[in-house]
Structure formats: C-alpha cells, structure tokens
C-alpha cells in the first residue's frame, strides 16, 4: 500500500508535533509548514522522524500555493491536510473591545481564518484530483479550532471572530467536499494544551503544569485526528470537540 502523505500547516511543540510523530509512526510521510521552521522541536521532528519542514506564511496566497506545489514535488500529493494555526498575535491577547488594536484584530483574522481558507482551497484542489482509495475516499482535511469557536469569551473578540469564521468555512467545505469523497472535520480543542516538557511533565506556557490530566495531551489529540482520517465514509464525523475530563463547559 502506498504511503499516505500528510501536510500539517502551522508547526510548534503541541498538536502539530504530536500529529507529525503519530502520522509517521503510522506509515505516513509528513510535511510540516511553519512561518519559522527553525525551532528546536521541528528540527527534532526532522531528525528523528524524517519530517520535511517548509517555510510558509499561510496568510499569503502565493506562499500557500507554493507550499502545496513544493510538497507535491518533494513527497507527492497529500491525502491528509491539517490546518493547525491559532493565529493570535501577542498584542491581541486579553484585550477588551475598546482597547483592541484594529490592525492586530485584522492580523488575527488573517492568520487564523484567511489562512484556513487558503489552505482549504489548495487542499481541495489537490485532494479532488486524488484517485479514490478502496473506500472511495480522496482525502481528509482537518481544522484545529478552539473554545472560541463555540463561545465568545470576554476580551477575546478578534479570536472569537476568527474561530467562528473557521467553523463556518469548515461547515461549508464539508457540505461541498464530503460528497466528493473528501472528509472535512472541525476539531475545537476546548482546553489548555499541556505538551511534554524536557523534564517529562506536561505544561502550558500560561496555565502552568498539567495536574492529573487537567490539560489536553496533544499526543492523545493526535489519536483522534488519525481516527478521523481512518473513518469509513459511511460514517464520518464533522465536528469533534475535545476537552479534559475535569474541564467545565
């Protein structure tokens, strides 16, 4: 069986790294694109798992088009595309509406939602050209999303706009592409993500150390992404919210 090729757009130490590890362990060849791929965690993925790294500002149409061309040239046509960009710029965090800088709000929208459109568009064009597999499927597109896709929090207007926009895009894409054999899924992570630190603990930059699994483990999130990719087309999930057992919602 030929190896599936996966592209993960948006690369860091959390979900993308966990997905890259699990996907390669499952026999896929994996490309990870990031604005700055020269991060230790991504270099480790390259060294330990043969992940190919690409530089891409996913809010730039030409850059996204080039990314997909490069991956096709280097690895082949993808069957699994993960859009994994949070998109918030530092200055927009915890800003009330009155004080939020419009330029930063627009940057957040571009980084998170417009990039999802661009990645989704390139993915749709490529996946539609794939031969259907034995299951009649041409591929999978997964959008990582956030709590803000489900509810607007105070001081989070720009991010809520971006996340709701991603949800709407994902729904519309699912309606258009699923009958063509492309599985589209929206996965809001309703939690802080605690990724593995060098000392073995799991922690989040702001929320601190994970205690008793009170933060989502990205390695476990990746298992659900892989399950979505493997679901039979007679029974596809569209929206899967993931949260820790003790999370209030």
């Amino acid at each position: 069986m030929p190896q599936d090729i996966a592209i993960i757009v948006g690369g860091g130490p959390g979900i993308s790294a966990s997905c890259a590890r699990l996907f390669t362990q499952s026999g896929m060849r994996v490309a990870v694109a990031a604005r700055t791929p020269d991060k230790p965690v991504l270099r480790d993925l390259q060294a330990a798992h043969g992940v190919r790294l690409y530089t891409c500002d996913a809010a730039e149409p030409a850059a996204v088009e080039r990314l997909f061309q490069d991956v096709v040239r280097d690895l082949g046509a993808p069957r699994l595309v993960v859009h994994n960009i949070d998109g918030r710029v530092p200055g927009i965090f915890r800003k009330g509406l009155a004080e939020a800088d419009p330029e930063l709000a627009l940057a957040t929208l571009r980084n998170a939602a417009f990039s999802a459109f661009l990645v989704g568009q390139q993915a749709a064009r490529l996946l539609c050209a794939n031969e259907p597999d034995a299951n009649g499927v041409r591929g999978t597109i997964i959008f990582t999303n956030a709590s803000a896709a489900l509810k607007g929090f105070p001081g989070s207007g720009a991010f809520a706009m971006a996340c709701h926009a991603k949800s709407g895009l994902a729904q519309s894409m699912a309606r258009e592409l699923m009958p063509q054999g492309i599985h589209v899924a929206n996965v809001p992570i309703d939690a802080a993500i605690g990724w593995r630190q060098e000392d073995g603990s799991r922690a989040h930059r702001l929320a601190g150390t994970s205690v008793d699994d009170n933060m989502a483990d990205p390695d476990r999130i990746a298992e659900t992404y892989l399950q979505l990719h493997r679901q039979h087309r007679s029974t596809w999930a569209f929206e899967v919210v993931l949260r820790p057992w003790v999370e209030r919602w």
Partner: protein
Amino acid sequence: MSSQALPVCLVVGAGAGIGGTVGGRFAREGYHAVLCRRTDLDGLNRLVDAIKSDGGVATGFLLDAVAPGSIEDRVAAVEAEIGPIEIVVYNLGAQIGDRSLRDTSAKAFETGWRLGTFGLFRLAQAVCPRMEARGKGTILVTSSTASVRGNGGQHSHAAAMGGRRMLCQTLNAEFAPKGIHVAHIVIDGAVDAPDTLGKMLGPEKFEQLREARGKEHDGLMLPAQIAETYVHLAKQHRSTWTHEIDLRAFSDRPWWNH
C-alpha cells in the same frame, strides 16, 4: 461473580443494527457483551451466538425499558452475576415516524420520552454510583438528528432526543470529573439496520433503499463502521474526551442544511 470476571459492556437496545454490532465489537476488545432488547428472543440469541462464534463472550436478556424497576434490576443482576459494568451503550430508539401534532397521541409522546430520556436517567442512576466507586466508566449514548433539530412531524421524537442530549450534558457536568465519560453520539442519517429502519420501511422498501443508497454506495451508515467510532470514544484518554460527536454518510446532507 468470579474474581476473573471480564468487564462488562452493557447494551440497552441491542438489535441487529448499531446496538448488537457495537456489543460484538466490544466483545472483540475483551468485554463481556451483555445485550438487552425488548422483544425477539430468537433475534437476541442470534446476536449472542454470533459473538460467541467470533470467540467473544456474550449474554442476552429481554428487557422492557419502560417497565418500572426493569433497568435497575438488570444492572444489579449483571453486576452481581456477570461483572463490573465499565461501558454502557444506551441505544434505544424512539422514532415513530412523522406525525402531525394532531396525530401525535399523548400516549405516544409519553412513551417516546420514557424511551428517549427517562430510560437513560434510570440507567444512569443505576450505573453511575458503581462506576464512580471504581473511578471509571464510559456511557455511550446513541442519538439522532432530532436531538439537535426539530424537523416537521417529529414532536415526540425531537422532544425525547433533545432531552436525551441535555441529560448527557448534565451527566457530564456531574460525573466527568469523577472519571465517567458520557458521549452523546448524533447519528445524523439513515442506518443500514434491519431491526429499525428495515422494520419501519418494510422489507421491500428497505431493500430498494439499500440498492439505491446503501451497499457499495456507502450512503447508508454501516453499523460495523459506526462501532469503530464507539470503540475510539471508549478508548479516548481522559485528558482529551469528546462529549458529543456527529456522524453521517459522506454523501448525506447534515442536519444544519435541512
């Protein structure tokens, strides 16, 4: 109960569709599948025998989920005589077809609620204290389009399933932090299931539908494939649980476009 008792997967509503298939799938994961359904002892025995011939362990019971005390007694007996219930699959349907308000009798509405909502409440009251004492458990609740969308003619079914959905949320609010994972599974489409859709349509129309949309077209949801997602949900790590998931065939229109 012997000391080596297998953990139990209790299925309430085990026909030849999702219920029986999910039970069989969990038997392959090493659970003792306890299948319960209201009628058709022969059909029940066929499901149990199929699991056994597949190398699994299974027991079947007839269970009228509307009868007072029935669910509670069955849970107690399973825990005493078979093993600890680690997984519950609540799979009772309450679909009575499209009926106008005038044609929906109070009795039909009440029965729908008893099957759709109240039965799950009673089952949760029976199993949650036991699961809580053990610090773990999974309750997988099959649900439907009507749980998120009140379509025309669905007064009884939508009210019952909407109640089921909300009950899943309140159960999660109380029991997720105690280690019990409750998942509300929206089956947003027609299932290739002879005991439910098949009986509602009659054998001839059901076969026509299977020819037109099912079989190699994959437009009817396949219980064996649905079961894969049930198993995935039961295996999810507690740091990342799904409390609601929607499933449909690739070619089907989802509830939000109806």
